[in-house]
């Protein structure tokens, strides 16, 4: 009972976060930057930041994660980090030979007031950046937003630094997939390709953080959106931004820079959100929805129908990032389940409103909160007061799941204790079946475990 100290009684807190349901901006920026081919992320701050982000991403993906650090010292935090960043850029291009470096800041470099824009310009002016190489950057102060904000900021940085136009319109669309797994990005590309649509998906971490074993260490794996592809996104017909929190700002940036209209959609998690994604994709590209997709959808509906008796009325607690939680809540309602307690450490005023719109009063005593103090401690208290049948979220949910004996589906970031997320998507209709399979698996395992012998059944 690791969480035995969590009291049922909920008291107002405003100074302390206990067991957070978020982390800080820079790790999101690092993950987004890995989705550009040949890009070396760079953390402008103390060594520890970079080490923590690399370790966490390594634990989640079980792949080597490369990034540089400005290695701040006491001196740099007094006199500014310009010298460190200039030296770092020169060193990285000399030794690691990336196509580009993507710099993100930290709370330290932000607070001392380093102007990354100016420093990068100086690096170019001083001839420290080799011919043809690029440096992109974004600001990621850790005391604002969350890891999702950092991802979004780097997507903006990518657009600012790499978006170009071909001169004339190109018959393609852009898709910003948001903070999802490499498997999901691969699935988005598969869906677009199967619909006969030319799409630039960025950032794209497939074949970067889920690389095959080859006996070689590749500092820059084969995947990632190429600079050449990024140079055309300004001429695309439209941008689909998947997820308000992670993707919309980048899409808007592209609209401002290159006048590419955009549409923000929910991440295609579950049935209804995937319907909207497929329709939007079809409309944006002017392509019909192939029969194969109707069948894919039908298979998901079929599984829901087959198993509906095990889903009906089950209460669910879920936590994670807003872009995931919104369509997941909708999916749970489609499954006839009750999303009862919903927590995200990521701030944003529209979150609670969207959740309440989606649930439409269908969930009595719904609890939803995001931002500071919306943490795992609060979620646990809610669960103690109103127990649930299922918990969905990242690995940090395992303490609550164990203490309260709740079936637990790992979903989101980070997943530190299981594999599969890199390889099997949870987006799209097929991803919906996987999610459903996982949900049913844990619920029915518990039913089997707890069934008295006479009612322990072979066929379920």
């Amino acid at each position: 009972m690791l969480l035995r100290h969590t009291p049922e009684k909920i008291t107002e807190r405003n100074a302390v976060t206990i067991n957070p349901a978020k982390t800080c901006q820079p790790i999101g920026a690092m993950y987004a930057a890995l989705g550009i081919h040949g890009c070396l992320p760079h953390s402008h701050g103390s060594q520890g930041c970079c080490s923590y982000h690399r370790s966490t991403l390594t634990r989640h993906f079980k792949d080597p994660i490369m990034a540089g650090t400005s290695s701040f010292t006491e001196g740099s935090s007094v006199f500014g980090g310009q010298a460190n960043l200039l030296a770092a850029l020169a060193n990285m291009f000399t030794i690691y030979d990336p196509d580009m470096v993507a710099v993100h800041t930290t709370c330290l470099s932000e607070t001392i007031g380093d102007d990354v824009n100016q420093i990068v310009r100086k690096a170019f002016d001083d001839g420290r950046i080799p011919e043809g190489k690029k440096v992109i950057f974004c600001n990621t102060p850790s005391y604002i937003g969350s890891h999702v904000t950092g991802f979004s900021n780097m997507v903006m940085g990518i657009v600012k630094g790499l978006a170009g136009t071909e001169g004339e319109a190109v018959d393609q669309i852009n898709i910003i997939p948001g903070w999802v797994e490499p498997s999901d990005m691969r699935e988005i590309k598969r869906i677009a390709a199967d619909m006969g649509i030319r799409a630039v998906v960025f950032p794209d971490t497939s074949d970067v953080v889920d690389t095959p074993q080859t006996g070689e260490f590749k500092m820059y794996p084969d995947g990632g959106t190429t600079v050449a592809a990024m140079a055309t996104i300004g001429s695309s017909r439209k941008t689909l931004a998947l997820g308000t929190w992670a993707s919309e700002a980048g899409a808007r940036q592209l609209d401002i820079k290159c006048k590419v209209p955009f549409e923000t959609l929910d991440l295609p998690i579950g049935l209804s959100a995937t319907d909207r994604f497929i329709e939007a994709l079809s409309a944006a590209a002017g392509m019909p929805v192939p029969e194969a997709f109707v069948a894919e959808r039908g298979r998901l509906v079929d599984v829901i129908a087959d198993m509906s008796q095990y889903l009906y009325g089950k209460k669910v607690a879920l936590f994670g990032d807003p872009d995931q939680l919104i369509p997941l809540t909708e999916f749970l309602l489609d499954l006839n389940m009750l999303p009862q307690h919903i927590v995200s450490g990521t701030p944003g005023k529209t979150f609670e409103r969207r959740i309440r719109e989606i649930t439409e009063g269908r969930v009595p005593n719904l609890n939803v909160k995001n931002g500071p103090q919306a943490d795992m401690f609060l979620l646990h208290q809610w669960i103690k007061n109103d127990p649930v049948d299922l918990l969905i979220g990242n690995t940090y949910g395992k303490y609550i799941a164990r203490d309260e004996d709740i079936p637990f589906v790992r979903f989101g970031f980070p997943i530190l204790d299981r594999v599969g997320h890199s390889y099997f998507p949870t987006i799209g209709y097929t991803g919906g079946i996987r999610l459903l399979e996982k949900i049913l698996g844990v619920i029915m395992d518990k039913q089997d475990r707890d069934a008295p012998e006479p009612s322990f059944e072979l066929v379920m």
Partner: protein
Amino acid sequence: MNAGSGIGILDKRKAQVHDGSGAFAMACEKASVAGAVSQRACSFCGSRVVLYPIADALHLVHGPIGCAAYTWDIRGALSSGPSLHRLSFSTDMQEKDVVYGGEKKLYQAVTELVAQYKPNGVFVYATCIVGVIGDDIKAVCKRAQSALGIPVIPVDSEGFKGSKKAGYHAACDSLMNHLVGTGNSDDIGPHTINILGDFNLAGEIWMIEEYYRRMGIETVCRITGDGRIDDVRRMHGAALNLVQCSGSVTRLAEALKEKYGIPYMRVSYFGIEDMSKALYDVAAFFDDDPEIMRRAQAIVAGEVSRIMPELRRLRADLEGKRAAIYTGGAFKVFSLVRSLRTIGMRAVVAGSQTGTREDYEQLHDLCEEDAVLLDDTNPTELAKFILEKDVDLFIGGVKERPLAYKLGVAFCDHNHERKIALAGFEGLVNFAREVHASVTSPVWKLVPRRQRPALPPSAVPLPLSAACSPAMCGGCKSACGKGAA
């Protein structure tokens, strides 16, 4: 200063790499080169890992959320009682706290948490940003301590202050300045020790403590595995300090020596030689009772004869295999080199994040002449030397594991993510089993690189269908385990 020949090493780093040829002279204890993909962390990380296992204390991180999130329950420092240390507490500083200062918020956080969790003490960790905006953590802690009546201890762990080592020092200072000597040590006997620098991963400190207990020696305080606030307060009453993981706790041992006259000795609990020495040295220290030495000898004799048959069995498959080692502190590398030797393996690449000049000299003497030595290395260098030296096993931490696997090399985690006890006599068997499991895994036969002769690179690749045969093993040093070396 002789690593200039190969590609993939920054000019500025060449002095920190000894490639196994030429005269030995190595630079170390330097700040990382800016831009290097260093495997190092920061001072905050150093302080956090040292103090983290004190299980009845509340560990509050004052800063933006990341520093608390990334250090939430990241290592298996087991506790026999309370487990407050496994929760994550943060002031989760927002923009307004950065602008207006976070002292009020910190005070409120400490007050709320103490009321809620009733800990025996609170550690408040400074993060980078706190150092920059100038929050007076010391003053806040002092005020909270007098209001709450329990120790509230500031830790000067701002990340920019240096590498993990600077953080180790800050952690030691916080213990020394705020806890040590504040408890009653009157009832502590003459044959007593403090165990410093063991973090009770997988219950290791319990094994060590048990050996000493069987010798008739009582442990007063554990720094910090299964640690308790009250034990730290009275640790000044022990007769001897044992220092493992020298980088992290030597400063505390030095301070205890200076202030209370307690001598300390460096020990290691990894491997037969070092573990036995750790028992014998302690027995020799307490020479007023010859029984202690007799018991130590009996323990060593009993344990060694108990584990030898299994070690011999495992060694048969491991004889002649080659290993690379990269750890945080350097002292552990010595033990690992010796342990590998016990199971028939050779360390051909060895290095650490924070080794000193003496450490590397000692390491150079311990390893074979052509071994590569690395200080504060990075993935590019590691990959280069793993391939060049054709190693069969990599011993390292979380960031090294996937690198090894991508290269098709077996791996053993000897860092804080290990799940089985590697200390003590039983630990050596566990270590040998883990190495054996990884090195002899059939998966390495499926790796493309292993399906052709590894050295020299100019050799003609074998077709993929050429299965590993005993005849081939000698040449390719394959991990299949069939061939004799």
